[in-house]
């Protein structure tokens, strides 16, 4: 997929997350990176029709629940996603992960993110 097109589609998904999701706002930067990694990876797997469960822990089940919810919402809001190839979904979701890491952590103005303790 052309990079500009992928970025335009990624921006739509980012908009949805910014308006509807709370999981990206954990109070510490290291925690946000984990949330982004686990939930967006699983969302990508769900959208590509792959197994998104790693183990039977409650932690994994939590990330999977967020991913299932997010993937369902993406399909409701953006019908183009069901017609997008697996490779293109991977490209868009990888861009999304990169963007979320930047907005919520690396480029964030939130001064509390670097505190060590909760």
């Amino acid at each position, binding site marked *: 997929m052309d990079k500009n097109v992928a970025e335009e589609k990624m921006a739509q998904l980012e908009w949805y997350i910014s*308006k509807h999701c709370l999981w990206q706002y*954990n*109070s510490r930067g290291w925690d946000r990176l984990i949330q982004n990694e686990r939930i967006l990876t699983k969302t990508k797997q769900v959208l590509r029709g792959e197994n998104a469960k790693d183990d039977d822990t409650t932690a994994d089940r*939590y990330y999977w*629940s*967020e991913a299932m919810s997010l993937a369902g919402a993406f399909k409701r809001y953006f019908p183009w996603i069901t017609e997008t190839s697996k490779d293109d979904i991977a490209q868009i979701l990888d861009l999304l992960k990169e963007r979320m890491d930047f907005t919520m952590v690396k480029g*964030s*103005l*939130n001064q509390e993110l670097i505190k060590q303790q*909760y």
Partner: protein
Amino acid sequence: MPYHQFKCSECIPERLQHAVDKGVDEDLTSALPLGYLNTIPGTISERGCAYCGAKHVIGTPMKNVIHLSHGPVGCTYDTWQTKRYISDDGNFQLKYTFASDVKESNVVFGAEKMLKKNIIEAFKAFPQIHNMNIYSTCATALIGDDINAVAEEVMEEMPGKKIFVCNSPGFAGPSQSGGHHKINLQFLNQWVGTGEPEIYSKYVINYIGEYNIQGDQEIMRDYFYRMGIQILATFTGNGRFDDLRCLHKAHLNVLECARSAEYICDELRVRYGIPRMDIDGFGFEATADSLRKIGYFFGIEDKAEQIIAEEYARWKPELDWYAARLQGVKMCLWPGGSKLWHWAHMLKTEIGINVVSVYTKFGHQGDMEKGVSRCEPGALAIDDPNELEGLEAMYELKPDLIMTGKRPGEVAKKIRVPYLNVHGYHNGPYKGFEGWVRLARDIYNCVYSPAHSLVHLDISKDEIPTDKGFVTRQMLSDVNLSDEIKNSTELRECTSDYDPIPRLRKKLEENLYTFPDPETGEWRQVPLEKLKKNKVVDVE
């Protein structure tokens, strides 16, 4: 950074970084005010203190507990009965408040002996209550009273009594938020893990950061019970002290107000491996999404979908009646800490309201990240505003109403801007599907109040119209509505009861809920006594 310079605060240059205008191309890397910093000298803040944040916001909603402030009587009086965190067992926590009534002589000679006497006296006066929360205040923290030692002595002398000591004096943080943090961790350290609960469902959650304002918790409890989920404890609205000792035994922490209670969730995740799931219980879509993902977690998404379908069918036509009449209404959404982000987007998409400003008194930058994200470009985001800034913003933005607490709300009234109380609520509960309709109704009644429109007339100079008499809200709201909407047979006004909570409590008494057995998975009723007062055994 698109900082917003208030004219009234030009003499306090540090204030500049506490307000931003969200532009069309702004995101969180370019537009975010400072937050959770010490109030700047010279600005008249609307914040509460750390004692208030611990006691009033989080401690006191616990039911069946004697809430005793160790300090001057004013501290406890000023944090009493101003928020309607009701309980389903008689509202002891609202009816009574206790103080050790520290005086000048106690400051000189110490107040520990008097405190002990007061604790015993309170327990004897209310023999049916076995739990007590003691809150330190500025005065008793400064004189160095050892409240924990006194509490230990009493617990030894009065077996069966349990005392939680909250050391969060007023000066222990920039705002009430400092008190939220302290009471979260102190309760966890002192009491969580000391009880063993009876588990009667396969699906067990803690409901965290929920304070049962006018029955919010009981609305959500109904949904959870309909899904067969056991609520081990609610932190803290309508929550029992004994249940809260068992927080470590849940499968999932469902977190509503992250501002006030994320700390205990994060620690439960680290210490006990219980995941934290943040939810939004306000708004149709947000509540549905929340139930859906809890359903995914336990593998009962079909139960969630069934509730969502039932609730949409019952309440959506009523929400849409108000949404049709509230399109484009301008609102300043100025609550305390979390509702700016819980509500901003849902107000826009589901009721058509244009949120022109968000503010938070005690929120952190994390709250503003959510608030700025969820409001539309053009909105003004303010951290810890002073009264003059609030006035200047209202004069500039000309909102149709503001949703805030009673202190800034009364200020708004003075300049003829109507306000809804979204701290203690006007006619809540506002949570869940039914609650969201009630909020839409209250907004409608506020914006189109014929009585309020009279305040815009100044009898000292304006001509008072004598040719207009009878007027209703609907006569005002329907002026520009299409006939299709006006004559719709599908849309209807709110039909929620004056108070929906007795209906929910009656449903609980009738014991209509079923839960899956933790061993066999068989769905069956659970004795009502367990639903109302689950068995908890003391453990070391």
